[in-house]
C-alpha cells in the first residue's frame, strides 16, 4: 500500500485509540443516507412490483385482439398455445353494462372469464374476499370490492343487468319488444389490491358475455400468459409478428403505460429528494477533512520535507473521502438490509406503540410491507454515494496539495 493511503487509513482509524469523532460523524452521515435510500426505494419498488404483478395477473401478460370480434377463438387459442414461450391463452370478452340495484344505476366494466379454464378460476378464487368460487356460474357475477361497497351489495343479492345492445335491439324492433333485463346473482366479492381493478369492475362468465353481446361462440380477444421469466414485451412482439395482421398482442405494460410511468416518475423524485441527505453528509465530510488539513498542516510540511510530492499529499486526503464513502456505504447497506429484514416487526412495533390497530391488509390489501430489491438501484446508490464522498474530499485534498512546504512547517 502506498504510504499516503496508509496515512489516510490511520488518520481515520488511528491505532489503539478509540474511533475519532470526525470519522464517526462523517461515516454515520453517509450510512444513514444510504440506508434510508435503500429502505425507501426498496419498499417503493416493493409496492410497484406488487402492483405490477397484480396488473399482470388481472390483465394477463398480453392480450391478442383482431380489432373486432374473434368468431373462432378456440382455433386461435390452439395456434397461439403452440407458440414457443406461451403457457396458455384463454378467450375473454369485456364491455360496459348498466347494473340496477334498488333503483340505483351504475355502469361498471364487465369482464367475461372463460369458465373452462381452471387456472383463471383459481386466480379468481385467490382474490375472493367474500363468497365462494363454486357459486360462480353463467347466471352470477363477481364484484370488485370497491364496486360492491359503493352499491351496498353482498353475495346472494340479485341485480338487474342491462347492456347497450338491448337498447339497440329495442330500437330496431320499433318498440315491439319489451326490454327485459338479465337477472343475476352476486356470487362473491374480490379484491386484487390494484385499485383500478378493484374500483369499477365486475366479472361474469364468458358464456354470459357471449349472450349479452350476441357473440355466439366468439370473444373479444385472448388473454395470453407467457412462461415465467420471459420478457412480455419481447414475447408479445414475436407473437404479433407470427400471427400477422389483423392480430395484435398488447402487453399489460403497454395497456398501463401512463400509470407505470407515473410510478417510475414518483420513484425518481423520491430518489432525488433522499439523495440530498447524502449531499448534506458530503458537506460534513468536506468540513471535517478541511479541519483535518488545517490541524495536520505541519504534518503535511513534514511529509514534503521527507520527499512527498504535492500530488501524494492530495491523494492522502482524497482517499479519506473515498474511505468515508466506502465505509459509510457498506454500513448503510448493512443497516438498510437489517431494517428491511425486520420490517414486519418494526411496523408492528410502531403500530402497537402508537395504538394503531388497523393491519396492513386493510389499508393496502397486502398483509405485509412488500419489498423488492433491484440490484441496479443498489449499484446506482452505492456508486453515487461513493462518488459524492470522493468529490467532498477533493476540496480539502486540493488545499492540502497547494500548501507550501515551508509555510506548512512554520505554521502553529
Amino acid at each position: 500500500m502506498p504510504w499516503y493511503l496508509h496515512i489516510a487509513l490511520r488518520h481515520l482509524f488511528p491505532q489503539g485509540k478509540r474511533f475519532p469523532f470526525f470519522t464517526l460523524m462523517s461515516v454515520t452521515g453517509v450510512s444513514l443516507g444510504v440506508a434510508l435510500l435503500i429502505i425507501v426505494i426498496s419498499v417503493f419498488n416493493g409496492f410497484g412490483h406488487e402492483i405490477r404483478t397484480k396488473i399482470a395477473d388481472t390483465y394477463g401478460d398480453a392480450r391478442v385482439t383482431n380489432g373486432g370480434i374473434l368468431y373462432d377463438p378456440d382455433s386461435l387459442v390452439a395456434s397461439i398455445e403452440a407458440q414457443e414461450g406461451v403457457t396458455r391463452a384463454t378467450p375473454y370478452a369485456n364491455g360496459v353494462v348498466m347494473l340496477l340495484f334498488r333503483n340505483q344505476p351504475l355502469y361498471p366494466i364487465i369482464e367475461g372469464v372463460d369458465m373452462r379454464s381452471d387456472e383463471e378460476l383459481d386466480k379468481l378464487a385467490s382474490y375472493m374476499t367474500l363468497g365462494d368460487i363454486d357459486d360462480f356460474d353463467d347466471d352470477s357475477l363477481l364484484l370488485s370490492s370497491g364496486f360492491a361497497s359503493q352499491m351496498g351489495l353482498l353475495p346472494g343479492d340479485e341485480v338487474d343487468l342491462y347492456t347497450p345492445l338491448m337498447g339497440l335491439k329495442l330500437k330496431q324492433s320499433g318498440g315491439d319488444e319489451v326490454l327485459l333485463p338479465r337477472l343475476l346473482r352476486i356470487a362473491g366479492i374480490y379484491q386484487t389490491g390494484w385499485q383500478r381493478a378493484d374500483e369499477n369492475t365486475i366479472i361474469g362468465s364468458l358464456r354470459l358475455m357471449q349472450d349479452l353481446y350476441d357473440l355466439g361462440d366468439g370473444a373479444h380477444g385472448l388473454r395470453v400468459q407467457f412462461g415465467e421469466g420471459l420478457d412480455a414485451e419481447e414475447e408479445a412482439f414475436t407473437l404479433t409478428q407470427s400471427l400477422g395482421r389483423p392480430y395484435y398482442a398488447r402487453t399489460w405494460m403497454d395497456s398501463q403505460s401512463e400509470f407505470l410511468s407515473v410510478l417510475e416518475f414518483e420513484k425518481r423524485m423520491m430518489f432525488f429528494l433522499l439523495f440530498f441527505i447524502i449531499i448534506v453528509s458530503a458537506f460534513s465530510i468536506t468540513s471535517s477533512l478541511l479541519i483535518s488539513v488545517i490541524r495536520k498542516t505541519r504534518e503535511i510540511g513534514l511529509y514534503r520535507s521527507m520527499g512527498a510530492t504535492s500530488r501524494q499529499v492530495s491523494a492522502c486526503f482524497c482517499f479519506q473521502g473515498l474511505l468515508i464513502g466506502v465505509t459509510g456505504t457498506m454500513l448503510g447497506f448493512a443497516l438498510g438490509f437489517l431494517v428491511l429484514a425486520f420490517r414486519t416487526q418494526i411496523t408492528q412495533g410502531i403500530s402497537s406503540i402508537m395504538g394503531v390497530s388497523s393491519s396492513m391488509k386493510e389499508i393496502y390489501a397486502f398483509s405485509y410491507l412488500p419489498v423488492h430489491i433491484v440490484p441496479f438501484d443498489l449499484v446506482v446508490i452505492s456508486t453515487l454515494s461513493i462518488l459524492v464522498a470522493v468529490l467532498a474530499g477533493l476540496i480539502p485534498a486540493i488545499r492540502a496539495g497547494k500548501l507550501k512546504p515551508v509555510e506548512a512547517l512554520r505554521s502553529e
Partner: protein
Amino acid sequence: MSDFILEARSVQRSFESGEKQIEVLRGVDFQLKSGQSASIQGESGSGKSTLLNLLAGLDLPDGGDVLWKGESIDGKSGDVLSVLRGSLIGMVFQSYYLVPELRALDNVMLGGRISGKVEKIEERSIELLERVGLGDRMKSLPATLSGGERQRVAIARAMISNPRILLADEPTGNLDETTGDSIMEMLQALCREDSVALVLVTHNTAYASRMDDSWHLKQGVLELSERVE
C-alpha cells in the same frame, strides 16, 4: 563541477511583513563536503531556519543558487525536487513532528516509504530504532514517549532513507541538557558511521564546536569562523 555535496551561492531571501520588506538573507555562501559536518549559529530570528529550508529545497531563494551534489536546483519543479530531496536529504526539527496516529516503528517506516526506500523497510527500521536506543518502545504511540525519545524516533526516521545529508534544526532545543547531550552524541555517531554530511543549527557552542566547520549567521550574512581540515 564542485566537489561539495551541498552548496549555497549568494543566496538571498526576503519576506514581506506588512508594508515592510525584511531581508533575512543577503547573499549567503555555504559549502559542505560529503561526510563532513557543519554548525550554524546565530541569534533567534537571524534566519537559520530560513537558510536550512532553502538548502533543503523546501523554499526557493529570491536570488542566488542552491546546489545539490554540484547541481543547481534552480528551475526544477516542486515535485521533482521532492523526489530528489527524498533520496538525498534527511531532516530533523526542534519539535520532532512525529505523526501522532502512528506507532514509533511506523513513523520510522513512513520515512522510508515516502522517500521510496522500501527494501527490507521493517528490518531496517527495527535496526535503526535499536541503534537510537528505542528497541523496546517500537510499538509505542508518540504521545506516550518523552521528548528525548520522540527526537530519537525522528532521527531514526530521517536516517531510514539513507540520506547523504542530514539537516538538523535545533534538535536539542526542546530538551534538557542531559537528554540533549545524549541525543547529540547519538546523532553524531550515526552520521559518522554512515558517513552522512550533517548541518546542525544550534545555540549550544559546545555542540557547535564538535562540528568540522562552524558558521555564524549575522545580519543576513554567513561567516565561517572555524574550519577543521
